[in-house]
């Protein structure tokens, strides 16, 4: 288990809608400038409308809204964002910048750039009117997180950016909220910008709450969800996501584009490499389940074949990552790396390394899994950490 204590929940008398209004009122009073980071997804809808309600009351209209257009997005999402932009209560910055995004469909081209100026002929949509396509601090190699610190000029003073993160979505998100007692719905830093904070006024909502609010208050919303509900995603709120299509997880939902938006889909097929392959196989052994190796190979052998599949630039990167895990193992134990059962001290095995090699692990998240791996193995062997260190180091 993680050494960090995870706080539990203390339920209040009020409901999540009332509380999120209070949080937002507090934020509007505390900061010189408040804006909403809007994606067009349903959680954004909740944050936007709550912020609007508070801004109206406090006479702080128009509300500043940021929209980062990721090019490959569902047509109803674009229509929805456009309707929001047209509202006189809203002042929207519509960014179309070439951010780097993961393309998990391809080992040859593992990243792609939205609105890539070098690939205008392949864009899946026309550039929207009045889009912001340049920024003096922006460079093409940047990921979104690298850029955010430059969005707000100093002249705005202290800025708070409201986002629709909800703890229901993942444990990571829960931990962000639960680790603080005061101002827990605010992040103490905004990726490097000291005068800017992020806040999560709807952190305690679940998906159902968003739809209750939409119905109760008649909020406009993204009609992509209506289309999702006509597919086998009916009522599966957590899998109904509005996000870039080529990442590790979203890849499994490429069929939604091909079934629901064929015109967009046909353009997506040319936009980045590997899309057609991922569409066919994203949910099979070719893209996941690297833990089920081909029968006639060992994991150690399969590892080399998986590494070989990457294009040269990335082969080095992924190999470096694998080497790092191997060095980590060496530091923890003198024993060789086991084939499939994760090592009880280091958590490493060739099976684990295969998973890393298949996915690339560009965010380094697999590292967090090692400790859990080791714990699982120790539990299987019925030994404590100390015993494991004595026996297996």
């Amino acid at each position, binding site marked *: 288990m993680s050494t960090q204590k995870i706080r539990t929940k203390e339920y209040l008398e009020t409901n999540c809608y009332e509380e999120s209004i209070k949080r937002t009122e507090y934020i509007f009073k505390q900061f010189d400038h408040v804006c909403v980071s809007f994606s067009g997804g349903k959680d954004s809808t909740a944050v936007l409308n709550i912020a609007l309600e508070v801004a109206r009351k406090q006479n702080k209209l128009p509300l500043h809204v940021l929209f980062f257009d990721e090019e490959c997005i569902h047509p109803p999402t674009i229509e929805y964002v456009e309707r929001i932009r047209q509202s006189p209560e809203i002042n929207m910055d519509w960014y179309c910048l070439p951010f780097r995004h993961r393309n998990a*469909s391809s080992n*040859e081209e593992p990243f792609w750039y939205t609105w890539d100026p070098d690939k205008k002929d392949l864009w899946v949509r026309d550039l929207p009117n009045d889009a912001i396509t340049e920024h003096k601090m922006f460079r093409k190699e940047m990921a979104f997180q690298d850029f955010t610190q430059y969005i707000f000029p100093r002249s705005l003073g202290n800025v708070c950016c409201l986002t629709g993160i909800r703890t229901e979505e993942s444990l990571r998100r829960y931990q962000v909220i639960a680790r603080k007692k005061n101002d827990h719905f605010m992040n103490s830093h905004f990726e490097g910008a000291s005068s800017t904070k992020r806040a999560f006024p709807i952190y305690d909502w679940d998906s159902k709450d968003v739809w209750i609010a939409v119905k109760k208050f008649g909020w406009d919303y993204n009609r992509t969800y209506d289309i999702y509900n006509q597919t086998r995603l009916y009522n599966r709120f957590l899998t109904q996501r509005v996000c870039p299509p080529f990442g590790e997880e979203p890849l499994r939902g490429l069929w939604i584009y*091909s079934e629901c938006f*064929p015109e967009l889909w046909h353009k997506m*097929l040319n936009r980045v*490499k590997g899309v*057609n392959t991922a569409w066919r196989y994203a949910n099979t052994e070719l*893209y996941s389940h690297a833990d089920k190796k081909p029968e006639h190979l060992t994991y150690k052998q399969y590892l*080399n074949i998986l590494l070989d*599949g990457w294009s040269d630039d990335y082969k080095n990167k992924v190999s470096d990552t694998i080497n790092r895990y191997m060095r980590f193992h060496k530091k923890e134990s003198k024993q060789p790396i086991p084939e499939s059962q994760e090592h009880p001290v280091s958590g490493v095995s060739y099976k684990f390394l295969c998973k890393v090699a298949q996915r690339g692990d560009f965010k380094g998240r697999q590292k967090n899994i090692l400790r859990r791996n080791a714990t699982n193995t120790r539990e299987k062997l019925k030994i404590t950490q100390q015993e494991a260190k004595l026996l297996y180091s």
Partner: protein
Amino acid sequence: MKIKKQPLENIIWIERDKLKPNNYNPNKVAPPEMKLLKISILEDGWTQPIVINSDYSIVDGFHRWTCSADKKILEMTDGKVPVVMLREVDSNHKKMSTIRHNRARGTHAVLEMSNIVSDMVKEGLDGDEIMKRLQMEKEEVVRLLARNGIPKSDVFKDSEFSKAWNPA
């Protein structure tokens, strides 16, 4: 003979321009598969007739019919396409016929595909030829082969030396 009553007993060749699409076809074929269909007709010839209603609207084979506008395919048969006509039925029946033709087919299991493509390679086909004739992305060929233990570098060989250099 019972066989005489089957639509296939009366395959006829007619001018492609006489046929017309139906107005309800839900089947969408993406560009890569359209290309594959063309290659299929060019390599193997016409193997299946287009199914039509008595008013010449297409029940099944809209995309084959679309491909038949291609000049090379047109020339293969002097502008004619093979058709079979269904008996006169009501409009719901027509729609159902289309849906049945579209949906009553399987999907390829991934591990079996991996085996087939690996066998092709073992028998000497190279990766580029597989890509071209099956309209597969390189990604697909590489991943199918990797699943069978065949590394990418065995099938897609770099044939160019790297650039020489002097110290700058």
